[in-house]
C-alpha cells in the first residue's frame, strides 16, 4: 500500500503476525448475533418500514414474536432501560426555560 498520504489505518507499532481474516469474521459474526438478540426492536422497526408485501408481512410477524421472546427472556431490557434514560435526559430543561413562550401566549 502507498504510505505517502497519512491514514488513520496506520498504527504506531509493527503489525501483528497473526492472520486477521478469520478473526475479523468472528468479531463481525459475534457482534451481529449479539445485536440480533439484544436489539430486536431495531430489526422489527426496520422490517416495519419496508414496502408492504406478503414476505414483509410474514417477516414483521416473526420480528414481533422475536421482540416478545427477547423481552420475555430479559435480553431486550437493557436497551429499553438505556433508551428510556436517554429520553429523560433529552427532556431535561434549564430552570425558567419556556417562560418566553408562556408569556407571549395570552390564552394561558
Amino acid at each position, binding site marked *: 500500500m502507498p504510505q505517502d498520504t497519512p491514514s488513520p489505518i496506520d498504527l504506531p507499532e509493527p503489525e501483528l503476525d*497473526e492472520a486477521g481474516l478469520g478473526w475479523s469474521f468472528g*468479531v463481525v459474526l*459475534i457482534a451481529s448475533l449479539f445485536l440480533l438478540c439484544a436489539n430486536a426492536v431495531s430489526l422489527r422497526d426496520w422490517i416495519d418500514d419496508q414496502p408492504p408485501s406478503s414476505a414483509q408481512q410474514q417477516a414483521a410477524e416473526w420480528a414481533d414474536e422475536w421482540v416478545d421472546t427477547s423481552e420475555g427472556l430479559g435480553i431486550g431490557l437493557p436497551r429499553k432501560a438505556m433508551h428510556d434514560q436517554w429520553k429523560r435526559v433529552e427532556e431535561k430543561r434549564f430552570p425558567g426555560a419556556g417562560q418566553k413562550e408562556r408569556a407571549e401566549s395570552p390564552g394561558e
Partner: protein
Amino acid sequence: MLFPTLSFGLFFLVVFTIVWAANGSNEWRKILLLVASWVFYGAWDWRFVALLIGSALLNWGSAELIWYNREASAARRRAIMIAGVTGNLLILGFFKYYGFFVEQLGDILHAAGYARDLPLMQVVLPVGISFFTFQGMSYLADVHAERLAPAKLLDVTLLMSFFPHLVAGPIVRGSDLLPQFEESPRLTRDMASIGLILIVWGLFKKAVVASELSTGLVDPVFFDPAAHSRLDLIAAAYGYAVQIYCDFSAYSDMAIGIAALLGYRFPLNFNQPYRAQSLQDFWRRWHISLSSWLRDYLYIGALGGSRRGFARQCINLMLTMLLGGLWHGAKWTFVIWGGLHGGVLALERIWDRIRPEGFPRLPRVVGILITFHIVLVGWIFFRAESFDAAIAFLRGIGTAGVASDVLTPLACVLILFGMAIHFTPANLGQRLALQVRLLPAWALGLLVGITILIVDAMRFEGVAPFIYYQF
C-alpha cells in the same frame, strides 16, 4: 442507503462475506465490489448509475489517449487532458450549476432591460457528483503529469464508484487507490481493529451528537432566527460548528473503517480541525482530501500558486477558496464562505510578510480562539438559507434577548463534548486499536455489539442524511 442504518448494515454484511470469499481472484473481487457499489448508488436513483459509468468511461478513455500520445507534442497531450477535464466540468456544471447560472443570467438581463424567458428546468442533483468528478479530474491530471500510469477500465470504474467514498468522500486519488487494486488485499487484525473503532466512533458522532444537535437546536434556530433569542443564536452557531464536524468527520471515519474492513487504505480526512492556530492550519486539518486537492490541482496546478509573485499568490488563494466555496453548491452563501476563508488566508500571508522582526507572536490559545471564531462566522453563512438570513442571524446575535427556549442541558454537554474531542491526543483511536487487536474474537465481538447497542439506545429516531450528501 445511509451508513448508520440497518439497511446499510445488512448490505455490508453481505458484501463483506462475498468479497472475502472471492479473494482468490482479484479480478472477480473487483467486479463484485463494482456491482455492490452500483447497487449502493442505485438505491438512490438507478438512472445515475449510467452517469457514473459514463463518467468513468470518459476518464479512462481520456487517460488512454494521453498515454497513447506520450511521444507526441506536449501541447497535444495537454489538449487531450483539458478536453477530458472539460468533460468532467460539463457534467458537474450541468447537474449542479445550470439552474444557478441561468437564474443569475436572467437577473442580469432583466437589470439591463432585456426581459427574456430563459430555458429553466429542474435538474436533479446526483448524489456525490462533486466527489467523483473531482476524482476523475485528478486522475487525468496525474496521468498527464506522468505521476500515474493509466489504469484498466475496471480499476478506473471501481476507483470512481467504490461505495465507501462514493457519495461524500474522502476524495481518494488514483495514486492512493489504484496501486491497491493491483493485487488481492489482506485483512490484518490491525486494519480490522482500527476499522471497527472508526465505524463505531463515526456512528456515535453522527447518530447521537450531530443528529441531536441538528434536530433539537440548530435546525429550529436557523429556520427562523428572528424568533429566537441572542443566547439561542449563539448556541446554534456553536452547535452547528460541532454538528458539521461530527456529521462530516463521522462519514469519513465510517468510510475509512468500511474500506479497511474490505482491505483498502483510505487517507486521513480530518485531524482535530478546531485546534488549528491559523486558517492555514485549519485547512491542513479540515476535509484534508478536498483542501489538498484544491492546493495541488487548482492553486498550484492551474493558477500557479506562488510562482508569479506575492500579489498573484494572494489572488490565487482568494480564487481557490471562492471556487472551493462554489464546489459546495450553487449558492451565494457558499461563495461568501469561500471568500471569507480566502480573504483571511491572504491576510495571514500578508501579515507574515510585513510582521516586524521580533514582533511577539500570539499565544497559542489566542490563535486557536481567533481562528475558531472566524470559522464560526463562516459556518453561519454556510448553514444559512440565504445571504439575508445569514445577516439576520448575525444581527440577532447583537440585538435580541437572552432567554432561551431551545437550549437544553444535553445540547450544552454535546457542544462541550464536540469541542473537547479536539484537544485529546490525536492518535487515541490508534492507541485503542493496539489494545483491541489483542482481544479474542468473541470478546471484541461482544464489545462492538454492546457499544453499538448503547449508541442505538441513544440515537435520535430516524437518521437525517449526511450534510455533505447534498454536495
